[in-house]
């Protein structure tokens, strides 16, 4: 009696399981192609070390510093002009540098020598990136500039920096939001993420 | 507990013997009685005259805390960053009731467990107590403490119910 029950049960189980397998395998075999597993990081990719080597040591304090501090007081927008018009603030072309430096040449300055070398070779200067928001974040510079956000709010007092460095701004979402709420700017997700 | 107190522990094989011992002891005015049983035995509890347990208050407080937490939390988070989904109101009460309910149960249970541990005086792993391992198996026990001068009387009562074992405890450790 017992044996029969077990046998009947086992047979039925086998039939059911084989049904599932037949269906799962489908009529023909399909192979699963391998996909790359990419982790998604919220973290922004930034230079680890703020004093990494730039090809030219560009002293922001000399260029943008206040004139009574010995700087030239050049406005940020003079070089990073597309910040007013574009999402990207832009890096000035070498020609912009040469606009002044063909005339302004502190004697024996190695850095200006190097700049001239780049210019003569018609090569762009490979600056190091200091600020970067995550790739899934859109940061339209022009909206912030036109809303009157001071460059220093994110970039710090660049006019006092001999070597450009990332100010200890977290560049996190919460940090952005704090300001957005303070300024009554939109908190809609699709303003930055799309 | 005064140092003058001493205790005596009796182990019984029979339930009725245990109950009778307790009743007799209480009749004679022995109030510091601890009974041991391998399972919850209401005759013993009745003999000791127990009333309601305060654990249920813990449960009530826990449940109400859970309700409050659930409502506050769901409403707060919804209002903290109001985002519309599916045309539903920011504070969607029917949806939030589910979470509130679960929180009520969770807090109620957690408070109850804390309450019962508190009232049972456990965990208590260290204290050196009079105990017979048979209590968790098949025997009942009665432990009574009394001033040294009345101990003999208690002992006599216990003996009259023919315990399987009788042990004196000079130090009179309390079972709280």
């Amino acid at each position: 009696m017992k044996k029969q029950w077990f046998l009947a049960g086992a047979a039925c189980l086998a039939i059911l399981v084989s049904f599932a397998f037949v269906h799962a395998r489908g009529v023909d075999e399909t192979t699963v192609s391998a996909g790359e597993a990419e982790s998604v990081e919220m973290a922004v990719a930034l230079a680890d070390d703020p004093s990494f080597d730039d090809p030219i040591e560009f002293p922001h304090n000399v260029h943008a510093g206040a004139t009574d501090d010995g700087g030239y007081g050049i406005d940020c927008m003079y070089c990073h002009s597309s910040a007013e018009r574009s999402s990207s603030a832009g890096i000035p072309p070498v020609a912009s540098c040469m606009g002044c430096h063909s005339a302004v040449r502190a004697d024996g300055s190695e850095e200006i020598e190097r700049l001239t070398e780049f210019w003569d070779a018609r090569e762009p200067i490979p600056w190091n990136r200091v600020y970067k928001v995550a790739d899934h974040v859109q940061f339209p510079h022009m909206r912030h500039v036109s809303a009157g956000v001071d460059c220093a709010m994110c970039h710090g007092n660049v006019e006092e920096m001999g070597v450009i460095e990332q100010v200890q701004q977290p560049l996190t979402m919460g940090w952005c939001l704090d300001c957005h709420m303070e300024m009554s700017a939109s908190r809609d997700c699709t303003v930055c993420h799309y | 507990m005064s140092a003058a107190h001493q205790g005596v522990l009796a182990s019984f094989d029979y339930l009725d013997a245990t109950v009778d011992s307790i009743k007799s002891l209480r009749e004679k005015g022995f109030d510091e009685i601890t009974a041991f049983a391998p399972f919850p035995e209401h005759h013993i509890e009745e003999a000791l005259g127990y009333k309601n347990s305060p654990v249920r208050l813990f449960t009530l407080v826990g449940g109400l805390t859970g309700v409050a937490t659930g409502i506050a939390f769901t409403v707060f988070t919804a209002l903290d960053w109001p985002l519309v989904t599916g045309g539903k109101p920011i504070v969607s009460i029917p949806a939030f009731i589910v979470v509130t309910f679960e929180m009520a149960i969770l807090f109620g249970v957690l408070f109850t467990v804390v309450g019962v541990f508190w009232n049972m005086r456990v965990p208590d792993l260290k204290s050196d107590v009079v105990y017979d391992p048979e209590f968790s198996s098949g025997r009942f026990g009665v432990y009574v403490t009394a001033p040294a001068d009345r101990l003999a009387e208690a002992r006599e009562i216990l003996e009259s119910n023919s315990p399987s074992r009788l042990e004196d405890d000079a130090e009179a450790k309390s079972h709280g």
Partner: protein
Amino acid sequence: MSDGMKRRDFLKVLGVTGAGAGLVGCSTDNVEKLMPYVTAPEDITPGVATWYASACGECPAGCGVWVKTQEGRAIKVEGNPNHPVSGGALCARGHSGLQALYNPDRLESPMRRNGDGHEAISWEEAEEMLASGLRDAGSGTAFLTGRTGPTLSVLMDELVGELGGRRVEYEALSEAPLREASRIAFGRDEIPAFDLESADLILSFGADFLETWLSPVEHNRGFARSTGVQADGSKARFVFLGARLSLTGMNADDWYPVRPGSEGVVALALAGALVDRGGDAGPYASLVQEYDLSAAAEAADVPVSSLETLVDLLDEAESPLILGPGVAGQHRNATAANLAALVLNAVSGAVGTTLHFDRAMTGAASSSYGDLATLISDMEGGAVSALVVRGTNPAFSLPSGSGFREAMENVGFSVALATQMDETAVLADLVLPEGHYLESWGDSNPRPGVWAVQQPVMQPVPHFDSRGTGDILLSLARNLGVETDAETFHDYLRNRWSDRHSEAGQPGGGFEAFWRQVLREGLAQFPADAVGEVELQSPDRALSFDLPEMDGEDDGLNLIVYPSSRLGDGRGANRPWLQELPDPVSKIAWHSWVEVHPDTAAEMGIRKGDIVRLETPHGEVQAPVWTYGGVRRDTVAIAMGSGHENYGRYADGKGVNAMRLLPAVEEAVSGALVHLVTRVQIEPTGRHRRLATIEGSDQTRDRAIVPAVQVDDLRAGDLGDHEPRPRTELRGGGGFIPVPSDAEPESFPHEGSRYGDYDPAENRRWAMAIDLDKCTGCSACITACQSENNVANVGEDQLLMGRDLHWIRMERYVETLDAEEPGPVDIRFLPMICQHCGNAPCEPVCPVYAAYHTPDGLNGQIYNRCVGTRYCANNCPYKVRVFNWFGFSDVPEPLNWQYNPDVTVRAEGVMEKCSFCVQRIRTVENRASTEGRDVRDGEVVPACQQSCPAEAIVFGDARDPESRLSQVSRDGRTYRVMDHLINTQPAVNYLRKVTFHPVTDIHV
């Protein structure tokens, strides 16, 4: 003027631009490099896209395009609205040009044959080898070229002339019979323009003018403008006569499933009947009288009464237009069939009204297979000692019987100018990587007087050491000592344009100013020679209009080999966008299929997906069957363009090459290669496969998905029982409030309904209207969307599992389809995108707010917040949410150069869907805000709308009653899919298709 090139220097913001913005590919280097320009180009602002006008090189139509570049990379191709051919739109193949530009299988350097393989060599060696090879061959040199721009043609002819050799043109899809017929009928050796827009009755004898024939984008536009119902209820009627319903045929109002090859007889009989009613057939009057309707009906296997109906239609039509058989219908009497169609045009008064010679399609006129056949026999005979092949792939596109491969082996020195190592290049002794049309100079002349310049929009993709064909030829000329007036092809082109400018009497002032204008606009219009009165002329050669002779056993099935609307003649096959684009007809992607009528299949015991062997006297292939009610029972059809052996990773081994079934036979009159030439035997192999299709069911089951309305009802203002059910909305305090029936999108959300802070007064509601009476299902929107939104491809295996990632699903429902009798055909297309529902079911189920409603009415999807529960997709009634199951966005370099930096590249495990091109909305808003103004109506144009050749899509603000969107949506035909059932309040308003036959009333 080399400045032109400088502007397109890459802004070398590598690392940022390499893969666009992305969820994938976060930089592994801690320090990224920022590369500024050396000299800032005036018109480039970093982060702002720059547009260049150029010309599309995908097909002979020669659409003018605008190419969007950002940081020096071309990222999107769009139609040039100023161009008369494209009119701002573009087809799927046009969009996919980018994937040819960035194709990872492009040649990296010149290659020299070495034993069985090829080895890389330097350009110096290659040019030296080319020059010496051709110098030695001298007059034994032959150039075999595909479609070639006019200026490049001049240069090539100049060079060939100096060498004393010859040049043969060959295009796989040739319209030689039409051209020859035009010469015979009207004495004009050219291809006339077919003005579909002005027609009120369109008769196609098989031409697939919406897919591949001549100028699909232009035809699509014209067709949609005439057959799309007008405000006054007028609408052109389209009758399709042919053995197989192509996509074009699917858009017909009536289908006459005529026997293949009977077009000539039918057209002449119709012409004869019209002559009886007073039509004028000129010198063909006696010819047309020889064909009566009953004989034609017999030949075409249709009832004579149906042809009489057709005569009535033609007679009543004010501006009818008749189109010939097209490439798929090229049979042994193809010229005669085309001629008959032209005669019918003339008799019904189409010439001059809808058929024009002043806008003839010069671009489409290429020479025929006959010339190539001669060349092949010369190659075999040893008369050709050097062969240069460019822009064509005859080793793939010719039937094996042509003997081209063997002949090429027989040539002493063979050279291929190619972008990829294709089937022809692999046979060559020397392979030169030529530049893509978006990175080299050229021009086109799609019609008389219209000249478009094809300017490079970026520097050559640095992964590939390629050179423009013109520059290769100029360098060759220098090495051969041939005098030219230019160092670079850019200069050569300018010189030719300068000549043309002077000849035309210097319109627009001096040449420099004119040239700048041309570069900006992409084209110039010169006065064209006036075309006088065009009249029928007596035929100068004998033609047979009878049913053409077919090879193979009598009991076989007629075989139609038609050009694929996706892959064309096969040159699109290595582009994943095109391979994965579901075929507009079958909805199958990646592989080949054979279309067999369900009844025929049932008789043979074949089911959908069974692999059959197709055998003709000329060859055999094996392919799975797709049962299709749109082919005659005695006919099967298969697309060309698949089955590459040596073309690249996305093409090789995908499908079968249908040309293997055909003989290399030229049509006696025009010399064109015949396609409809043989019968085929079908035999099941006993094997079966699942079809890589996106189609679930083609039956709507009377659900309110694609309702239609009969045109008479529409005119009478009677939309049947289409009074929408009262709609309700959730009320602020709970419960529901009814929305008045006149509350159309602009009043949404209804006052008092639950919308929290989302104040309707302050926010727009973006919405879309899609006119299904205009949509032809061409699927250009799908590829445009892929290009704009970085939509990844998944490949055949994943498609088989049902995992395609397209944001637009072009649904195709079959309502009425009968291959037995002439009658109405009703196939309905529905581009299904995210409906951006007001009450979106997907939103509340997301546990992390990755799906939510934006204040401006979008259904937002925040990729970086998504954890991948897929609950939203389950709960989406429209099934428009797609999931990235693997890291589908990881594509080989440099395909990722195409990625739009404004759109996040989605990672594995993330849900995505149509965003209404939110990046375009935000860009416009940013621009408007910077300029201190409001966003204008029509300023935001999503990629699908931008690309739609049928102009079926309108986008705008539903809360602005004046917006074009609101106006269009107020049409009585407007409905929202299933809204009445599930109260989703979609933002996409569809306008019902309008039919000539009565339709089932569906409550919407």
